[in-house]
């Protein structure tokens, strides 16, 4: 199995461009084959897990799929972590209630593939998914990615930080929070890596990121509680470092209740991560699962992700083909950071985890 190669966004833009000719067709074409649709309809239902409605617009994606194909989706356990998703596959593998598809982080995609939990499938638009975001054997494939961003509750925090150094200013005392521990929560982990990139570190050495947060804590700006939508909106954690699509979705939802700004930190290489789709090897409804993937990776599905402010995997291919409506582009943050974003590969992630395990609780004291 190929390791993920660390690739700046520009590189996989080029890769995607190379695959363009083979994989891209006009938005209306390349729908799922009628045979697949009828086989899926025959199965009648799809079991999904860990898809919160406000996460990357999954609420609308699920609703659209149900309406379009008349297949009921049972969406369970919206708060499942990636590890719990894999456990659900294992625990329910002989039952018809087991999950058909999962949406997990890259480390877990690799883990699940190794363990033999997934069945391979390549969607019709396979070629326009960047090579660094998919398993060559079709066991898992990235669906969307996001960048580390700051979400600011404007009614509590008068000031708005624009880069990492701003967070250290005294006006943010007690305000800056992560969504959990960098050893357990994906966005928190990404925040530390992003802070490292902004402070002289690299994907191979995230120590400056840990030191950044240690300093933030010493100044009293770091709020250790695990930020949630509730704590951002209520103002208990007015500055939350989280995925851009989550902060933006919260801002949209809280419109009328409280103003929330989303800022991609400037002056540093933007850092992001993607999530991966996979079909369970024990899927009780395999055809419905395949139809789901076809839908997700069709232009329609990918645009729904974008509507939820999550950049879909086929973003560059679709942008080049002009498949993205201008009105949608206008709602998104400026495109520049997305072109420059970097992702860590598996080896770098493991190294970062070890550094965190040895140093996070030692150095960061609130």
């Amino acid at each position, binding site marked *: 199995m190929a390791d993920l190669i660390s690739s700046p966004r520009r590189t996989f833009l080029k890769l995607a461009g190379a695959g363009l000719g083979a994989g891209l067709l006009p938005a209306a074409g390349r729908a799922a084959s009628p045979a697949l649709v009828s086989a899926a309809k025959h199965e009648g239902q799809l*079991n999904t*897990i860990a898809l*919160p*409605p*406000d996460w990357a617009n999954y609420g609308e994606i699920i609703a659209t799929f149900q309406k379009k194909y008349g297949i009921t989706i049972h969406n*369970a*356990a*919206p*708060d*499942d972590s990636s*590890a*719990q998703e894999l*456990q*659900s596959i*294992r*625990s*329910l593998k*002989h*039952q*018809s*209630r087991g*999950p058909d598809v999962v949406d997990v982080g890259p480390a877990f995609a690799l883990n699940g593939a190794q363990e033999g939990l997934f069945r391979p499938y390549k969607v019709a638009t396979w070629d326009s998914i960047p090579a660094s975001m998919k398993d060559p054997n079709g066991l898992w494939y990235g669906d969307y990615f996001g960048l580390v961003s700051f979400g600011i509750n404007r*009614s509590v925090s008068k000031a708005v930080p624009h880069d990492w150094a701003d967070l250290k200013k005294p006006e943010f005392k007690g305000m800056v929070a992560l969504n959990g521990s960098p050893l357990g929560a994906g966005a928190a982990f990404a925040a530390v890596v992003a802070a490292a990139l902004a402070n002289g570190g690299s994907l191979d050495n995230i120590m400056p990121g840990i030191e950044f947060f240690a300093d933030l804590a010493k100044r009293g700006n770091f709020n250790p509680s695990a930020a*949630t*939508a*509730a*704590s*951002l*909106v*209520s103002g208990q954690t007015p500055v939350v470092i989280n995925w851009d699509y989550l902060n933006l979705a919260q801002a949209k939802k*809280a419109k*009328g*209740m*409280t103003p929330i700004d989303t800022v991609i930190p400037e002056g540093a290489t933007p850092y992001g991560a993607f999530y991966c789709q996979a079909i369970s090897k024990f899927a009780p409804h395999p055809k419905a699962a395949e139809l789901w993937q076809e839908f997700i990776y069709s232009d329609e599905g990918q645009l729904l992700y974008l509507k939820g402010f999550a950049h879909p995997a086929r973003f560059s291919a679709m942008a080049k083909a002009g498949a993205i409506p201008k009105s949608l582009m206008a709602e998104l943050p400026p495109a520049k950071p997305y072109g420059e974003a970097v992702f860590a590969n598996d080896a770098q992630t493991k190294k970062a985890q070890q550094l965190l395990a040895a140093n996070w609780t030692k150095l960061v004291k609130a």
Partner: protein
Amino acid sequence: MRGVLGRLLPEAWLGLLGLYFLVPLLATGAFSLWEGGSRYGFAAYVALFHQPKLWQSLFLSVRLAVETILLGLIVLVPAVFWLNLRVPRLRPVFDFISVLPFVVPPIALVAGMTALYTGPDWLVGTPNYLVIPYVILALPYTYRALDLGMRVLDLRTMTEASQSLGAGWGTLIFRVVVPNLTTALLGAALLTIAIVMGEFTFANILLFNTFAVYINYVGQTSATQASALTLLSFLITWLAMLGVLVSGRGGRSVQIGGAR
């Protein structure tokens, strides 16, 4: 020292404790009534009541709680009775077993159980399957409640007296011992209810929609509704417990004569 201060001290202490428990709830309540800006109202509560999933998951959890209590008591009462009556030397074993659920991570317990026991389908595929691990999760609390209740009884005298009057083990347990255990039984039942209503990991991984799973889901979608739901569930559970207590007591006085 007696005197005014001595008389007031207990009340002051209870008052302080009461504040400690009340204020965080009030803070949650204040947030649940917030509708944005400086508007306050019951919008969150109204939205909650209209969700059928709320009631479905609530009833499911209540049903599971009752089943867990029954199964737990059936398994535990005879064992703790025997422990206190005849085999006090087994106490260290019991004590260790009773704290084991504390140190096994729930997700590991799920993994182990589902790997070991894959059938029968009529049990494993239904939420009733949850009752089995729930009894284990409640074990530390129910065991201790029952044990503390039984160890202050004079079981030997009770047993000898009953058996000399011709009673069998069943009569002894159900008609002599159990009536003296009301407080402990109620405590065990109440704790079990609370545990089952709050249990999340097992239900989540096995994809059952219990009340705790629902609360978590609401927390994902609406901040104020989550706070409203927290308070509501607190209140509902409190009223339910009160009901159980009042009916369980049935007007009987606490001071039971006899060996205590």
